[in-house]
């Protein structure tokens, strides 16, 4: 009975004016709650999840686009300025969405497993870090011994140029690495990319001598940002001060600017991916993914197309790297570990290989899990530890719980569980790609057909 009424409810929700009303209600509720209690995680999650409602309910595409743009461009930045932590989470989500979408081209479309994806991110980051800081003049000095007041090599506005350069350099790196190994079977590529990721990290760690290129494990800082004119800050304050409740400084607005830049990159990646998906190249990639031998037999140029996918993925990572370097004003080898690559991979796998909404959902989920839920859980445990509470049945005092048990530090466990369970139970992800959905839908008639054929042959 309950099930029946639930399906009925689901039907009603998708009919008539209901989707519009519910979507608007969700967005409004989220916005108001976050506005009223800027520190509540639940309110924030409610606001972020309204993107999901917007996607899932059947509304007019123009309505989706306008409301989505309004939320992304106005509500989120303004809410974010009120609580910097949200802005940080949102920025992290957008960075990882962009990375996951880039990796999705490589893994989801062309079926090439890239385990060193973060290496290309590092290439982009170190490119701007070197040219956008004083590092050029630090070259002859060992880390920590450079004289003060060195000049900057380039003005901060050169950043925009380097966003394009990062695309080119990362793509070239991808081609250089890919051309020898893309001829081999996929699992070799996985290991070589993994090795390459480690090589890049070790180089970043060790290239502080004989010439100090990367400043070693300490990393490069400060890295310049592009200028943000005072007039922009003033006009933002003029419009939004009543809502924000205070004057916003330039440093805060920088975060908004980098968030918007990341959003811009994401939109470009989505447009490129959508255009590619059903183009000749996209179909060739799918053919390669499904069956290389058959693809070659149909005249698909294997190596050059694989290189293309590899380079495209690498270039998106490169531009996000440059963006990250500028927004943090600091890069160090720590940020480019193997775990980051696997993190991005588990986002893609969780959401659904080859599915754009899926990958966005995956990236957002994993980032929020990492930054908010695990952290919140750690905080909760440490509060329990300080209290006198006892677990009832087994009579275990929370105070005796080891301080080592800190969920925020066990991201690998999380990534591992995501990867294994998704592979076993739902390899196509939470939101499977359209093509896969079509395949799954046509599975049953296919089976019947195969059955009749077999019987016919018998």
């Amino acid at each position, binding site marked *: 009975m309950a099930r029946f009424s639930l399906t009925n409810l689901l039907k009603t929700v998708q009919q008539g004016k209901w989707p519009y009303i519910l979507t608007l209600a969700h967005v409004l509720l989220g916005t108001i709650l976050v506005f009223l209690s800027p520190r509540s995680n639940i309110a924030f999650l409610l606001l972020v999840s309204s993107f999901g409602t917007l996607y899932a309910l059947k509304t007019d595409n123009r309505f989706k686009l306008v409301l989505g743009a309004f939320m992304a461009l106005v509500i989120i930045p303004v809410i974010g300025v009120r609580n910097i932590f949200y802005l940080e989470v949102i920025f992290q989500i957008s960075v990882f969405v962009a990375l996951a979408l880039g990796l999705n081209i490589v*893994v989801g479309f062309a*079926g090439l497993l890239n385990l060193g994806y973060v290496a290309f991110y590092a290439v982009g980051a170190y490119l701007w870090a070197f040219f956008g800081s004083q590092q050029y003049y630090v070259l002859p000095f060992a880390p920590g011994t450079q004289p003060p007041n060195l000049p900057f090599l380039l003005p901060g506005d050169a950043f925009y140029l380097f966003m394009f350069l990062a695309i080119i350099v990362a793509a070239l790196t991808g081609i250089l690495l890919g051309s020898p*190994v893309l001829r081999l*079977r996929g699992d070799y590529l996985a290991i*070589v990319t993994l090795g390459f990721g480690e090589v890049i990290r*070790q180089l970043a760690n060790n290239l502080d001598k004989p010439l100090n290129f990367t400043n070693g494990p300490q990393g490069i800082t400060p890295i310049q940002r592009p200028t943000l004119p005072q007039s922009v800050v003033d006009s933002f304050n003029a419009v939004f001060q009543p809502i924000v409740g205070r004057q916003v400084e330039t440093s805060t607005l920088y975060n908004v600017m980098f968030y918007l830049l990341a959003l811009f990159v994401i939109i470009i990646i989505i447009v490129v991916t959508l255009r590619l998906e059903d183009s000749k190249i996209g179909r060739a990639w799918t053919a390669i993914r499904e069956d290389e031998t058959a693809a070659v037999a149909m005249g698909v140029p294997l190596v050059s197309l694989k290189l293309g996918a590899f380079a495209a993925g690498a270039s998106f990572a490169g531009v996000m790297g440059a963006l990250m370097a500028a927004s943090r004003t600091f890069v160090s080898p720590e940020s480019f570990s193997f775990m980051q690559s*696997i993190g991005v991979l588990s986002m893609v796998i969780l959401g659904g290989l080859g599915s754009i909404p899926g990958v966005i959902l995956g990236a957002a989920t994993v980032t929020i899990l990492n930054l908010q839920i695990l952290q919140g859980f750690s905080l909760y445990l440490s509060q329990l530890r300080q209290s006198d509470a006892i677990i009832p049945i087994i009579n275990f005092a929370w105070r005796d719980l080891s301080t080592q048990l800190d969920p925020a530090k066990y991201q*690998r466990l999380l990534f591992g569980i995501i*990867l294994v369970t998704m592979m*076993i139970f739902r390899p196509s992800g939470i939101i499977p790609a359209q093509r896969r959905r079509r395949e799954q839908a046509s599975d049953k008639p296919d089976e019947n057909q195969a059955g009749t054929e077999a019987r016919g042959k018998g």
Partner: protein
Amino acid sequence: MKRFFGTINIRELMRPLGQMLAFSVGSALALSAIVLLLALLMDKSAAGQSVVARFNVSLFTYVLVNLPQVLIDGLTIGFVYAAIALGYTMVYGVLEFINFAHSEIFAVGAFVGVEILIALDEAGILGTASLGMAYLWLIFAILAGMIAAGSLAMAVERIAYRPLRGAARLVPLISAIGVSFFLQDLIRLVESLTTGQFNRIFPTFGNFDERLVFGQMDMGGTAITLGISIKSLIVILSAMIMLVILNYLVNATKIGKAIRAVAQDRPTASLMGVDVNRIIALTFLIGGSLGGAAGVLYAAKFTRIDPFVGFFPGIKAFTAAVMGGIGNLTGALLGGIVLGMLETFAGSYLSAFTMGAAGAEYKDIFAFGILILVLIFRPQGLMGENVAQKA
């Protein structure tokens, strides 16, 4: 008894010993010759001058004096790599799949062995043990590590790989990466909950830290002793024994025949009455226990272990397996020894040859560089069949 020994195939016992000897001596001679030649050529260059300035000997003497130690170290680590590489290569041979979690199986073996020894040490048993007992306890720890790692490998196969058999190639690989990550943090979690820390130290006992000294050499006034530490000797000998047993198991027993049959053609082997699932589980058991033993030996040699200890040896053993020709047991042995030697040579001499600009920290990069070079020029490995795309 007599009948049992009568059936032992002496040739299969001796063949791997001969191969090990040939590979060790061959790679040692070849690499020494190359390095000595390079040293002779660069003796008068700036690099040679800087060595004279630092050590007060010519580059050639410096290389020559250090050579015996480098060879022994290279051989030790080479045998560890070979033992791990056999786990990769056996699974690859049977399932055509890279068991990415093998490096964590290795780590689990190391932790089980070390935890047992630490417990024995804290109970005061190791401190008072006679030399013979010390060796027995070490063997016990190695066996425990083997059992733990072997059964873990079987469990991982059953839970995370078997349901995915027949799926697209990348699916089990991604699952294996997941298992690897999961196990890393699981070790960390268990260790930090039970012991409060996750760096464990191999206890000092027996005479394992002593060195057998063969003689002394003079280098610019400082005396250099030539010798081999007992630990290295133990590592090399135990690895050799395990490799001989494995070779015998695979090449001269009925089970080995079944493993080879499954590797060659799974459906046909199944038609011939081989229980394929059992053989695959057995392959994981054997590969895993070899990895576990290698873990304990690694811990004995390098003393300190942490939950991420498996990562680099794992990757390098994989490189070794690819270098020898993945799926090929002899190849894994050759690849392990050659890679261990190459890496130790690079780690020891890079600094002297590049005037200190690039030192031992580049030896990991060196191993990956070799992997890429091998894949470019000889993707089937030194002894393997063709693995290139069927296109």
